[in-house]
């Protein structure tokens, strides 16, 4: 009974598949995952769902496509990222069906690298090539005054930056389904576009903190001794800083931008991941496969990242999902306090801060809807993280 | 065995576990008796159900998955399975005590060992704190721990495995129970310590007149210490006999296989005989006799493959569950039996 590597019947179940199957047994978390996917779709398609410019409009007998013309570089980058993401998922499915598990890992990483390269290159190219056009024509007025006909608007026909002081602070009505904020922008539109901010903050911030944390934790855990001692003191210093104070300090002093916030949240929250990886690496260091790798003379980065890391990454993944929820929270809190993204960029937290008007009126629609958005998003991520933790743990215990 | 000598009587005990993967029948139709001041050994491979049997005597089976589905357990005439939990709590630790396999984890790490013994004493006896403490120290001395005054104030993590097991024994025997259930008491210990612990148990048995239910997979221990032995395989008892006759002449093919695979002094064969195959998965027991796939006699026998043999008396004082064990099945056979082996009390006939 020789084992042929390509004989499908002999393939075991890979760790990823095991976790995925266990995860799928929990219907609630699959629902939450579906919700998160829905949010992503919302974020990607935001300019098509809520836009002040119509898809198509007939002016003086000629067809114009204002919405498509006004798409910005960021929109194109987001589309590119979405396409690449979907392509990668399809590739994963194909891998699972066609490639032997022992080879799958290497193939997967090559694919990811190619995808990342395409993404970054594409984004740079887009940002350099796509001009920034400002189209300030008010198409709704044109339709209203019969200067144009045959206009097809997006489902929510308002732009997130539109200011219309005549309709400010209106509760939900037929024109503005979720009401308007203090400058007259449509709440639903800003809610949809705000999802982009929340999701991107989550991912980038957690991405940064994971990278730093994994790197630091791997070095400390692998070497131990003096390096570990000094390193842990540094980690303790960073941990002892009251992070929220630090964040608002930094954010208040430096110019307000989404990018700054993402970086700052990332560099203040890596300590948890570092401690996890360090603990895992301590355990793994003594195992035979690490000794074998060392005796083969493999370079350090190979030992650390190709051999040890996949075994110790589980708690970091779980922590990452909770981290995304936390990052969304922090961004909302910062925007609420006035330190986050500046208007007109839409942010759920900033909308929340308008809930009590300057005159003291309680504008319930500005409190309820953004609040629910934050709540459901954070809840979804937390539940997914919890289910992921459950999916990973018992498997480890059973396999051991 | 005359009736008034029987301390514990287990009749047709069945225990099942209702798990996500299915229904596991961990113990099926187990019947045996334990006499006063005797050591009864329950032998078998891992997973055969011996620990579950012991736990069900103490009614410590974790109840959401597990359940005693049939049978009776009589302890001094009282039906243990019908007692209320409160009554059972009074019996546990006091009349029936149990020690476990892992001394490392079986003691609470945050209390001193003195405190843990005192807890058992004060629960079942009306003694005040200082009396109980004095008793505890005395127990520690009895189980052979030197400097017991000092040791009583130690925490479990400060002691070695052997000492911890002695502490467990001290705790269990502190209220002088009539039955001590020892679930693999020496498996986790060094060989030299094993002997010491077993000697200790022997001594305590002589001093207190207590019975011991010894659960083990080590046949050597059984040969030395047990008075009567029951062999379990895949949730059933397959043979019961006094220790001497069992080792001299095992009747059930499984017992025979086990004994054959023990290396002995003077063994000259090149390879150690083994029992072919592996223990069956409790979720998917074989039909008929559970041992038949591995049995040299029964793997081709249709009766062995389809009908499960009952545990019945096949010699005076010996029971076995095997179609190939000679025994009596009808009245005539019984008379023939009697003429061959002499008059004896008639036991169950094949049904």
């Amino acid at each position, binding site marked *: 009974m020789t084992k042929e590597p390509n004989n499908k019947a002999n393939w075991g179940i890979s760790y990823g598949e095991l976790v995925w199957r266990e995860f799928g047994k929990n219907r609630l978390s699959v629902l939450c995952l579906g919700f998160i996917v829905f949010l992503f779709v919302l974020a990607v398609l935001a300019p098509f769902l809520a836009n002040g410019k119509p898809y198509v409009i007939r002016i003086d007998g000629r067809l114009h496509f204002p919405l498509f013309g006004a798409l910005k570089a960021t929109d194109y980058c987001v589309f590119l990222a979405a396409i690449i993401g979907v392509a990668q998922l399809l590739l994963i499915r194909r891998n699972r069906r066609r490639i032997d598990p022992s080879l799958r890992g290497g193939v997967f990483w090559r694919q990811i690298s190619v995808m990342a390269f395409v993404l970054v290159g594409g984004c740079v190219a887009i940002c350099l090539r796509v001009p920034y056009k400002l189209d300030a024509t008010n198409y709704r007025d044109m339709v209203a005054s019969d200067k144009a006909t045959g206009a097809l608007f997006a489902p929510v026909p308002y732009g997130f930056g539109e200011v219309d002081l005549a309709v400010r602070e209106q509760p939900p009505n037929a024109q503005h389904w979720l009401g308007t904020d203090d400058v007259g922008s449509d709440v639903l539109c800003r809610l949809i576009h705000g999802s982009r901010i929340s999701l991107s903050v989550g991912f980038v911030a957690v991405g940064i903190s994971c990278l730093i944390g994994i790197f630091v934790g791997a070095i400390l855990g692998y070497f131990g001794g003096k390096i570990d001692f000094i390193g842990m003191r540094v980690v303790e210093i960073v941990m002892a800083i009251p992070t929220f104070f630090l964040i608002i300090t930094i954010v*208040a002093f*430096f110019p307000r931008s989404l990018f700054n916030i993402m970086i700052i949240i990332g560099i203040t929250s890596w300590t948890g991941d570092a401690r996890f990886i360090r603990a895992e690496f301590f355990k793994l260091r003594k195992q035979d496969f690490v000794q074998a790798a060392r005796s083969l003379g493999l370079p350090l980065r190979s030992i650390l990242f190709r051999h040890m890391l996949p075994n110790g990454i589980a708690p970091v993944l779980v922590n990452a999902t909770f981290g995304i929820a936390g990052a969304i929270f922090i961004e909302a*809190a910062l925007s609420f306090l006035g330190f986050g993204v500046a208007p007109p960029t839409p942010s759920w937290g900033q909308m929340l801060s308008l809930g009590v008007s300057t005159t003291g009126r309680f504008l319930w629609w500005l409190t309820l809807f953004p609040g629910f958005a934050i709540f459901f998003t954070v809840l979804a991520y937390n539940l997914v993280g919890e289910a992921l933790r459950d999916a990973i743990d018992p498997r480890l215990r059973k396999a051991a | 065995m005359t009736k008034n000598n029987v301390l514990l009587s287990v009749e047709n005990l069945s225990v099942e576990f209702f798990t996500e993967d299915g229904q596991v029948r961990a113990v099926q139709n187990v019947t045996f008796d334990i006499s006063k001041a005797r050591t009864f050994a329950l032998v078998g491979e891992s997973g055969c159900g011996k620990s579950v049997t012991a736990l069900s005597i103490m009614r410590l089976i974790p109840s959401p998955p597990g359940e005693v589905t049939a049978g009776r357990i009589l302890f001094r005439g009282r039906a243990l399975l019908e007692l209320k939990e409160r009554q059972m709590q009074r019996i546990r630790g006091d009349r029936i005590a149990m020690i476990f396999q892992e001394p490392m984890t079986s003691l609470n790490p945050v209390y001193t060992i003195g405190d843990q013994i005192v807890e*058992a004493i004060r629960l079942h006896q009306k003694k005040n704190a200082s009396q109980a403490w004095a008793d505890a120290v005395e127990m520690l001395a009895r189980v052979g721990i030197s400097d017991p005054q000092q040791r009583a104030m130690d925490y479990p993590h400060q002691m070695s495995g052997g000492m911890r097991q002695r502490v467990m024994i001290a705790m269990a025997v502190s209220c002088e129970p009539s039955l001590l259930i020892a679930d693999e008491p020496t498996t986790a210990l060094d060989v030299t310590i094993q002997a010491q612990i077993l000697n200790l148990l022997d001594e305590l048995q002589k001093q207190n007149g207590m019975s011991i239910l010894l659960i083990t997979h080590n046949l050597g221990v059984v040969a030395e210490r047990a008075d009567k032995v029951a062999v379990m395989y895949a949730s059933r008892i397959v043979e019961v006999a006094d220790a001497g006759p069992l080792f001299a002449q095992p009747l059930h093919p499984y017992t025979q296989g086990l004994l054959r695979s023990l290396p002995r002094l003077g063994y000259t064969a090149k390879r150690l005989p083994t029992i072919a195959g592996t223990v069956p998965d409790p979720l998917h027991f074989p039909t008929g006799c559970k041992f038949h796939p591995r049995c040299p006699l029964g793997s081709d026998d249709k009766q062995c493959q389809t009908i499960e043999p009952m545990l019945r008396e096949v010699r005076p004082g010996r029971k076995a569950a095997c179609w190939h064990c000679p025994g009596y099945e009808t009245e005539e056979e019984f008379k023939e039996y009697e003429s061959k082996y002499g008059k004896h009390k008639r036991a169950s006939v094949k049904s």
Partner: protein
Amino acid sequence: MTTYVIRRLLLMIPTLLGITIMVFAISRLAPGDPVSLSMGPGGQMDAERAADVREARMRLYGLDKPVYEQYMTWLWKVVRLDFGDSIKHHRPVFDLIKERLPITLSLNIIAFVIIYTVSLPLGILAAVRHKRFFDRASSVILFMLWSLPSMWVGQMLIGYFCGPAFKNWFPPAGLSSNNADQLTFFPWFGDRLWHLAMPVLCLTYTGFAYLTKQVRAGMLDNLRADYVRTARAKGLSNAVVIFRHAFRNSIIPVITIMATLLPAMLAGSVIIERIFSVPGMGLLAFEAVTTRDYNVVMAVATVGGVLNLVGLLLGDIAYAIADPRISFESAV
């Protein structure tokens, strides 16, 4: 044990230095400075005069010296508890902190006590009734509580319970009513509690979920441990087994959580004090940051760091006391 405490306190010093350096660096790296802010566009003065005034003010606050000198002077003063003067309030920062810290601390301590009183029994009960209705239901509810953003809850509470629009049961802001100084002790105390009710509510609910989960997880692990089986075999009743054995072991990780809970609540204080206008450290920090009040910002960050470290130290000491397996020599 005293050597352990002394060693930890000594180790705290480099950590504190690190914190102060970091805070100082950030406040100095940022564009803009308090003098320019307080002077505003200076449209009323002509340029030369404005420059003179600016220089004078910079000299007054020592902002014209090189950075490391500023740091050393500042550090030297801090060690003697002189945090300088607040540029906005024109009062010594130390006084401001002295006024406000007790408020924040009392808010957090009350919340702390409530969280522990509720979570411990809840966690034990959920573990004992594992996988049954109570466990599942409380799990879901606690999860939802954990995911509620505190500013949202605060705002909703104000909108629905503290204002004229819906119910007017609680005051929307402040620590005491306007006539508080005229009241005797008990009415004053009651008034204080009435004002604190909503902020404390906001501060506690997030802690419930986290702590209950930890207690539940610890209890589940311990209830299945071997020594619990031994305890049952001794004939102990279920209640004794749960409380004296399993719970006593589960409490060990919970104690270490105390150390991390306090800093988290201090952070949450910022938002809640802002929403409810409670004059505590959080609000002080917020205002200081918006007005670039250097001295206050650095003082608050330092005090926050100290509190963090003290909390960590207390947590470690409590851990070593609770778990006899940890000796003070082995724990660094």
